[in-house]
Every structure is written in C-alpha cells, then in structure tokens.
C-alpha cells in the first residue's frame, strides 16, 4: 500500500501520513468506495499537499545551496585578502598607481544631497584628466566563429545535425542603435507547435493517479475527474494508470529483479553476433568505413552487395609464427610425432573434457598442469615455456597440431591426410605488419575490394570493438574461460573466415584477440573441417555451430568462383573502347543534364540487376560501387580506362562526366604509395592519374588574410598553373529548405556562405568549412568552382582559371543572378561549358 510513497522524493512523513489517512477513510466503510464527490476533494487535497511539499523542498534546496555558497564565498574572501599581502611588487615602487591615486584622487565629487539635502539638485559633470590613452589597435574584419574542417574532421563536408536546423524556429532581430527588437519569425504557421503533444505525467501527477487507483476502479467518471484536475485526456490517464499498476505489482513482487535489470548492459559473449551488433550495425558508414559518419549520417539503410569478393590469402613458405600461441609452434611438434592417431584421440578427449574443466577452474590448476606435461613430452622446451601460461590455454594447445593444414580444398580430407602441412599458411609480412587496431584497413587486401567487402569489414570491426569490451570485462571478472566457444565467438570466427579465409593467425588476432588464441582458432577450424568430412559420409553428429560453419563456408566459395569467371568476361569487353565504359543511355543523360543541377546519389539495394524499380535509375543517377546491384549492372558507371595520366581532359569519360576517377572502378587509375613522406600529398608525377585530386587532397596551401577588396580574403601560398586544383569548398550539408531559411538570416547579417551543391543539398560554410570560404567574388576571377562526383559524393573543388602567382588573392565568380534571386529558386544557366555547377548566388562577404 505504501509503495507509492516509497519512491517519492518528498519528505517521507508527509506522504505516509497522507496515504494513511486515505486508507483510514477507505476502511471506514464500503460506501466511500466510488464516491466521486469525495474523490475530487481528495485529489485537490492531494494537490495542495504536493504543492506544500514542493515549497518545503525548494526551501531545503535553497538553504543547502546557501550553506555551500557561504563556504565558497569564504574561500574567495580569504583569497582577496591574501592578494593584499602579496603586493610585494608595490612596495618596491612598481604598480602602485591605484593605491597612490586613492591617496591623491584626480578629483573629489561630493554628493549634492550632502550639501543641500535636496534630491532634485543637478548632476555634477565629471571633468577628468586622462590617465592614459589606449593606442589604436587594428581591428580585424568581422566573422562568426567557425570550425575548421581539418584533419580531425577528415576535411570533409558534414551533414547538418538535426538540432542545427533553423526551420520552424523563431529568430529575433534587433536594431543595433535602439533597443527595439523586431521579430522576424517565419510565417506564423511554421511556428505553431503540434498541439497534439502527448501529455507526460510528472512524478506528482503519477502519484495522484496511483493514489486514485488504489482506492477506485478506473471507471469513466473517475478518469474524467482525474483528467480535469491533472490534465491529459482519458486514454492517456488510462494508460498511465495501467502502467503504474503493473509497475507497482512488479515492484512488490521482486525488488531485486528490477535492481539487476539495469546492470547487465555489457556485451555478453552468449549473445549472437547480430544481436550484439544490433545497435552498432547501422552506425557504421560503409562508404567511409567509419562509425558515426558525419557525411552520410547514421542509421543508413544497410545495403548488402549481392556479390562478395573472397580473397584467399596467398600461401608462403617459411612463415613465422604469429605468437607464442600460434599453431605454427606446433608444427614442429607434429613433425616429430609419429603418432597422429594418438594426437587426434587426445584432441577429442580434451575437447570433450572442456566443460568439465571449466567447473574445476576455480581450483589451482596443478592437476591440469601435470597432465599437460605428460602429453607434451615430445618437446620439453615448450612445456617449460608454457608453465608460465594459463593452464587452460595449454590444454587447448595440445590439441592443435593438425589443424594447420586445413584449407578449403582440404575440407573433404579424412583423418589420415591430416598431416599435410602448409597448404594455406598466412602471409608472413602481413602478419607482422598489421597491428590489431588496423584490422579494418587490412581487411581490404587491395583497393578493388573496398566496396564489396565493406560490410564484412564492418562486422569485423564492430566485432573487434565488442571484443575489447568483452575482454576487459572478462579480465575484471576473473579467470578467463577459453576452452568453450561462446555463440558470439563462433560467429566472430565465421566472419573471420569470410574475411581472411582459413587463416587462424589473422582470425585470432583481428577478431578474437584476447578471447581465443591462434591455436584455439586453428583447432576449432579443424573441428569444423572434420565435421565436413564426417558429414559427407555419416549422419550428422556434430554440433549446430559446426554445421553452420560449414554452410557458411560453402556459400563463401561459390561467389568467389563466379567472380573469377566474370572478371575474365569483363576484361574482354573492356577492350573495345572507352565509350563502352558507360551505358549509352546514361551517357546521354549526363550530357543532357547540364541544365539541371546534379542529382544526389543514393545507393540502391537492388539484387543483381537494376530494373525499373531501381531508385538510381528512377533518380537518373548512375549506380555506383556502393550499390547493392552486381558489377555488371547496366546502370553502373564503369569508370575509365585511359592510359596513364590521360584523365585530365574530356577524353576521359570520368572527367567528361564531372567525376573524379576512382581506383576501385577505373582500370588504370591508382595510387602508388611510398613516394613522398606520409601525410604529404604525393607529387603528381608521370604515371599518376590526374583526376583524383579531391580524393587525394592534393590541394594547395591557402592563406587567410585581410582582403584587398572586402573583409577577409583567401590567398595562395605558392604559384600554380591553369586548371590546377587549389582546394575544396567544404561546409555543412543542408537541405534547400534549410538553406532558404538560413539565407534569410544571413542576408540580414550581409554575409552568406551558401553554395548550391545538387538537387538535395546546399553547402553552408558559415559555421564549418575551410579557408576557401573566404575567397571573394569577382566577375573577372582567377579561379573557378566545379562540382565533382567523388566516390559517390558531390564535392566542390576550386581550380585555377589561369596561372596564379604566389601570394595572390583568390577570386571566383559567385554567379550572382541578374535579380540576385536565390539560386535554388531559378534554373542555373548552364551556358558555360562544363562547369555545370553553380556557386550559390547569394554569397557576399564583408
């Protein structure tokens, strides 16, 4: 009964006495039950009481705060007094002007009331001799504080965060000279807030509902009275009523349960991978390969490519072990051993024993250790090394040896073939070069696979992340339990197979680090392989997980083969001419598209071929590498196959279409690494594609200084030649509606940094951007802006229109419209050749 008062922040005695009094009324007779007149009275009584409690609470809070503040002030006071003592410098004669002025003021002004006692006497003029003049300091041109989209922000445009919208918000302007303000909100209908807001019941209101539901049935009348006195409508109150009721019941039933609920938020290894990834899955941007991508936003629709690439890692001899726990360490063991059967037997036995061992793991591992020593006799050195290791790990290691040789081809191998060594050993260099944290980049063996394997990589990187948490948790939690494969571990293992093939070193390191050792993975891999072979002969007797592993493995193999075939076919086709690189109708569309602003690309999720329903086709954009459709999709932009460094003219289909070349798509365009130190843009020398300048950020150093024309200006540090790329105009990506609204605001401040990007977005460099936002307008400019399609995104590049000397100020044509109308309100004129793109007409900086 008193549960309602339990969770109140109010003084306990009050609420208890309150519910006591209610219950007494209730006890006194059944007639009270359902007496609605009394109910209304009770509610108002309760309200008063709640208000009284609130008053007390505030008093209490204010009083507490006062005490705290008093001690703060005391501290400040002592500091202020200390400063008096610390004025040693003043004694030496320096810095005592203020003190000496106190003794000899410039003038003394006696109050008028002192003299006459007359309040209405005139004010005294202060005629003051000047102590010092403050010399003029040059002002800087005005600007609003902005964020430089620098390395930390990946130099990229950022999509506007939801809370940054000015649409529907009132903006008040005032006249600087007077204090009169004028309200400039948008049309009234924009402001009107949704009336049908759900009534949220406060704690106090819940308390009243609770009180009522203890004493009354929730009849229409009761709810009606409640609604009248505390607000909300009947159905809302009904809802709240039931919610509170169940809440109370559970509260009464088991307090401890509810306490437990909140705690277990960490990732459990017993959860499935998909469940663990649930919340993280759509936070990953498959286009940028980062979490929480500011450019494409979170909660993107997940598009799974229909075809995946599978890269079996090249085998190599003389591989070094990845760690002490590497399965390779045990090859030697195996070679010396001439009793494979025994080993195998042992292996089965150990794994059978696993659960048992876990139960015993609380005991000191002496028993286990001794057991190991006997089995490890073949190589004493190892045993001594292992003494230092956890006994559980050792036990697992014992059973590894033969796994080494398992490959996809070996899947059917029976037990007697197990001894074959080194069919698929990992690439030693890769193993050593790649630290765990870079698993993501490593998952892309060459650039071509970037898009296709993106989602695999995503899973793995999330996995790694999860794992780190999971392993931390484990360490805190006590002794590691390594011998058992948890569902999550199994699934991570499957992902590892997808990414790395049957390479236990890489899987263990990148996906199961600190959960499973290489040996354990190798062993598990062997188990799975064995399962396959067994299953082909006998009835299935293996565990679920193994079956799944096999199934996945098979799926994996099929596409990788078909891909190879397709590749051959495509290679032939591409020989014809560059014209075939693009689908004919699409080609035309691009050519025709000059009079329209470009279309924002949204990856389609079509399976294999794009048909009429394909959003890309519908939207008149090409399919890109981020689409779900197959590579042979007719709507795909196929890139170019220009010879080296030929991509700088309209001869190159990419260049002609206003796109940068894409090493993943174009045939001969790639970046070789190693020239130039890291961090520096590689020199554009022979052999390099000249049409990836935004992608590679091969930009010029831009300087910011006072403009020779107006306000701030952008200047060039080093001289450049015609058509050289200078830099990118970056900013916040906002919708046209938003831009419209912001444009109005900016016009008042007479400074706008809007730049029309495509049919969906406008770039706003007002609060985020780079120095090029300060390049001024000129009708005879030395630069031009061009929207380029770079890896599926539209970006604005600023290029030199002519040779520009070092230190010159940069200008480009903002393309002010004849009527200065916002660009999105009229059709941009595409008369000027190629640069279909059209800077925002309103930009004007002062």
């Amino acid at each position, binding site marked *: 009964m008193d549960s309602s008062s339990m969770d109140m922040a109010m003084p306990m005695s009050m609420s208890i006495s309150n519910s006591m009094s209610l219950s007494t009324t209730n006890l006194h007779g059944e007639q009270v039950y359902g007496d609605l007149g009394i109910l209304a009275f009770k509610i108002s009584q309760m309200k008063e009481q709640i208000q009284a409690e609130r008053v007390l609470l505030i008093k209490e809070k204010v009083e507490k705060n006062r005490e705290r503040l008093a001690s703060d002030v005391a501290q400040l006071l002592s500091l202020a007094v200390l400063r*008096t003592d610390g004025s040693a410098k003043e004694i030496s004669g320096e810095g005592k002007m203020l003190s000496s002025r106190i003794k000899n003021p410039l003038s003394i002004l006696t109050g008028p009331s002192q003299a006459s006692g007359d309040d209405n006497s005139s004010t005294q003029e202060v005629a003051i001799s000047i102590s010092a003049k403050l010399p003029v300091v040059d002002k800087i041109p005005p600007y609003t504080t902005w964020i430089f989209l620098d390395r930390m922000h990946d130099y990229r445009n950022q999509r506007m965060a939801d809370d940054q919208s000015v649409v529907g918000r009132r903006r008040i302007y005032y006249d600087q000279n007077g204090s009169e303000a004028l309200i400039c909100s948008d049309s009234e209908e924009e402001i009107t807030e949704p009336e049908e807001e759900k009534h949220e019941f406060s704690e106090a209101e819940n308390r009243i509902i609770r009180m009522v539901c203890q004493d009354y049935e929730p009849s229409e009348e009761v709810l009606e009275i409640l609604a009248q006195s505390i607000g909300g409508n009947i159905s809302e109150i009904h809802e709240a009523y039931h919610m509170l009721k169940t809440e109370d019941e559970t509260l009464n039933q088991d307090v401890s349960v509810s306490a437990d609920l909140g705690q277990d938020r960490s990732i459990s290894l017993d959860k499935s991978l998909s469940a663990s990834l649930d919340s993280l899955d759509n936070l990953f941007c498959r286009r940028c390969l980062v979490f929480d991508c500011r450019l494409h936003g979170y909660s993107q629709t997940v598009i799974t490519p229909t075809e995946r690439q599978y890269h079996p890692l090249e085998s190599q001899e003389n591989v070094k072990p990845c760690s002490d726990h590497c399965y390779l360490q045990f090859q030697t063991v195996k070679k010396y051993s001439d009793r494979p059967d025994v080993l195998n037997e042992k292996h089965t036995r150990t794994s059978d024993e696993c659960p048992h061992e876990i139960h015993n793991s609380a005991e000191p591992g002496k028993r286990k250790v001794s057991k190991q020593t006997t089995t490890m006799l073949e190589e004493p050195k190892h045993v001594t090394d292992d003494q230092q290791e956890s006994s559980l790990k050792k036990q697992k290691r014992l059973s590894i040896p033969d796994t080494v040789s398992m490959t996809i081809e070996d899947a059917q191998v029976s037990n007697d073939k197990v001894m074959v060594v080194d069919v698929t050993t990992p690439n030693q260099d890769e193993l050593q070069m790649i630290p765990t944290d870079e698993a993501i980049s490593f998952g892309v063996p060459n650039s071509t696979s970037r898009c296709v394997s993106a989602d695999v990589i995503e899973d793995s990187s999330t996995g790694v992340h999860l794992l780190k948490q999971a392993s931390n948790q484990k360490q805190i939690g006590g002794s590691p339990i390594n011998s058992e494969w948890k569902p999550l571990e199994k699934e991570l293992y499957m992902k590892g197979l997808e990414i790395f093939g049957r390479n236990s070193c890489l899987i263990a390191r990148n996906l199961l680090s600190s959960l499973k050792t290489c040996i354990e993975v190798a062993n598990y891999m062997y188990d799975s392989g064995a399962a396959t072979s067994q299953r082909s002969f006998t009835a299935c007797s293996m565990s679920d997980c193994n079956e799944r592993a096999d199934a996945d493995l098979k799926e994996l193999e099929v596409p990788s083969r078909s891909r190879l075939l397709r590749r051959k076919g495509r290679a032939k086709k591409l020989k014809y001419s560059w014209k075939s690189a693009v689908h004919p109708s699409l080609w035309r569309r691009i050519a025709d598209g000059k009079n329209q602003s470009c279309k924002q690309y949204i990856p389609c999720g079509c399976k294999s071929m794009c048909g009429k329903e394909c959003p890309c086709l519908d939207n008149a954009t090409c399919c890109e590498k981020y689409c779900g459709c197959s590579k042979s999709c007719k709507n795909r932009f196929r890139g170019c196959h220009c010879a080296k460094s030929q991509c700088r003219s309209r001869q190159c289909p990419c260049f002609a279409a206003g796109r940068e070349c894409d090493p993943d798509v174009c045939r001969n365009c790639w970046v070789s690494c190693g020239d130039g130190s890291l961090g520096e843009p590689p020199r554009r020398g022979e052999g390099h594609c000249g049409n990836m300048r935004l992608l590679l950020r091969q930009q010029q150093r831009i300087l910011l200084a006072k403009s020779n024309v107006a306000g701030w200006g952008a200047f060039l540090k080093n001289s450049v030649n015609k058509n050289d790329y200078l830099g990118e105009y970056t900013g916040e990506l906002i919708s046209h509606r938003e831009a419209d609204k912001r444009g109005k605001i900016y016009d008042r401040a007479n400074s706008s940094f809007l730049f029309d990007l495509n049919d969906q977005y406008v770039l706003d460099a007002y609060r985020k951007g780079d120095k090029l936002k300060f390049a001024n307008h000129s009708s005879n400019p030395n630069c031009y802006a061009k929207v380029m399609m770079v890896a599926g995104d539209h970006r604005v590049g600023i290029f030199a229109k002519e040779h520009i000397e070092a230190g010159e100020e940069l200008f480009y044509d903002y393309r002010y419209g004849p009527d200065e109308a916002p660009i999105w309100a009229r059709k941009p004129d595409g008369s000027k050749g190629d640069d279909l793109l059209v800077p925002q007409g309103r930009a004007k900086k002062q």
Partner: protein
Amino acid sequence: MTKITLGCEPAVGSLAPSKKRDYRVTNRLQEGKRPIYAVVFNFIDSRYYNVFATVGGNRVTVYQCLEGGVIAVLQSYIDEDKDESFYTVSWACDADGTPLLVAGGINGIIRVIDAGNEKIHKSFVGHGDSVNEIRTQALRPSLVLSASKDESVRLWNVQTGICILIFAGAGGHRNEVLSVDFHPSDIYRIASCGMDNTVKIWSMKEFWTYVERSFTWEELPSQFPTKYVQFPVLIASIHTNYVDCIRWLGDFILSKVNDCLIQSVDNEFILWEPKMKEQSPGEGTVDILQKYPVPECDIWFIKLSCDFHYNTAAIGLYNSGNREGKIFVWELQTSPPSLIARLSHVQSKSPIRQTAMSFDGSTILSCCEDGTIWRWDTVATS
C-alpha cells in the same frame, strides 16, 4: 518557458517590498554624453573593495566610493579609436597582485589595462565581432571569459595574453552570446547564454592542462595551441527569448527571462538547478526553483549585480512607456524570494543598464544610458 507541471512549481517572489533596508540617492555624476553600459566593484583585492570602474563610449574610468556619498575619481583611460564603444568591464589581476581592468566592446578588441601602472597592458585581437560581457575567475583572477557576438565564448589568460579555449562549434551558441559566468567554486565549470535563447553549461576539465600551460607559455601567444570546446555538458532551452544575463548562485543558476520582446512587458529572473547527465552530456534537465519578477521592463541587455556574499541582488529596469528607470533589490537566498526595496527617483528617466552592489550591499551604483552614474546608500530604518 517549459511547461510547469504539478509538483514542479517554482516559488515566486512577491513584489511587495519588505523594506528591510532602504536606499537613498547620495550622489549623481554625469560622466559624458554616451551611454554607460557597465559598472563594477573590485571584489578581487580586499584593498580595493570600494573601488569601481565604469565603461561608456571609448572611456574607462576608475572611481572610489568614500564615506558620506563622496565619490573620488582615480583614473581615466581613453581609447584613441573614437568609434569604440565599450560594453563591459571586469577587474582582474596578475600573479603579483597588480590590479588589471579588462574591457571590451563593439570593436571586439579586449583591452587589458594595468591600473597599477596606469598603462595599457595588452590588447587581445581575436573575437570576430563585438564583446558583450567579460567576467573574471575569482579563484584565479588572471583568467577571464569573454562572450561575443561572433557566437563564441573565449577563455583568456590576461597575464600572458593567451587565448586558451574557444567555446564554440558543433554544440555552441547559434547567435550572439550575451552573458557568461564562472562557477564560484568549481573552477572547471562555466555557463553562458545568449540570443539563441539557450543557456549552456560547459566543463573545462579535460582541457585544464591547457589552462595551466598558459601560465608558463614563453613563446608567442599566437603560437599557443588554442583549443575548441565544442560540446557543453548541458544545454537548457528553458527560455523562449533572449537570455541576456546569467550568474551562478552556488550550484544553481540565475538567468533572466526576456519576455519584453513578445508583447508582454514582464521579465523575470529564474533560479534553477541544472541536473547534468554524466552519461550523455548535453542532455540534462533543469528544475526551476524560484522566480524573481522584473515587472514592466521593456528593454533588454540589462545585467544584475550581487553583493560579495550573494545575499542581495540589484537589477535595473526601465519602461519606455512611462520612461521610468527603477532598481529592484531582491533578497536572493530566501525561499520564497523577497523584494527588499524598489528604488526610484523623479529624475531617473533613463534606462539603467547595469548596477553594482558594494561588498556588503550597503551601496548600489547604477549606470544609465544618458551617461549618468547614481549612487544609492542605505538609510537607517527605524
């Protein structure tokens, strides 16, 4: 304002003055013709508790309050740029205890004046637009905060001339910042408010090493690695209009609700408790505890002042209808709040931009748009 629900009602102060204390005009100065926007006592150094500074136009003036309503003029500084119009001034000092004055205004240049040597100490160029308020960290009086029209708040070290932090960016203000204040004891915590109708509470905790570095920095100040603080720990959207004054009162915050722009002429200060969520910064809630009405006031950019112990506060108000400039004196830390006195004078016909309460609250100074400075002293009540 957020909707006030049952059980969350604030305690509203009554407008009937308690007359616990009363004040009378004891002196009146005409400093010039230009509006005086700020007046402030020196609470940094106990030697100068009765010394105050004013700014108006391109002038910074230092005075002293003497017995019997007498005001002595001590120092006066003129900016050679006649177009400068100072909006704000604050007392600070360097490590040696030399008193400094930090003033800023329409030019956006912060002037640090060495009052101990009567010369300019440093000028900070950096703000992209006018400076609306400057406040000093009383625990470390070389640190000052400036609130600017360029939408940022900046933390400066006046001793070394370094801009240490810039509070702006992704989570920053979206319009002019009008007011800013240091927490009285939590040295990491500041609050700011402005024309985007929000109050933001920021933490400098993870940037504190930069603050410490600024004291020992020996290279050029411009080479200091100034940091952006982009995300506040709490954003309170409790107001629907400009918030032009903010002060910490212990762990609570006093902020001014400015309703004068939307027809109603009633403003009020609210005292509220910020409730931060440590897990998700930026998303706290607020509990509005008390209200101090400022009735019949239809101008904004008015600031409140407190005595050293935060017991009483004085706020100027002005009604353009009857052209009356009044001062309300509130008892701050009682619940419900109580009005001590309502000060008016037949000749007080100009908007009062700021008041200054003396150390013990016995003297109130007010500065007006017509360039006058008024001194009010307590009179013994029988």
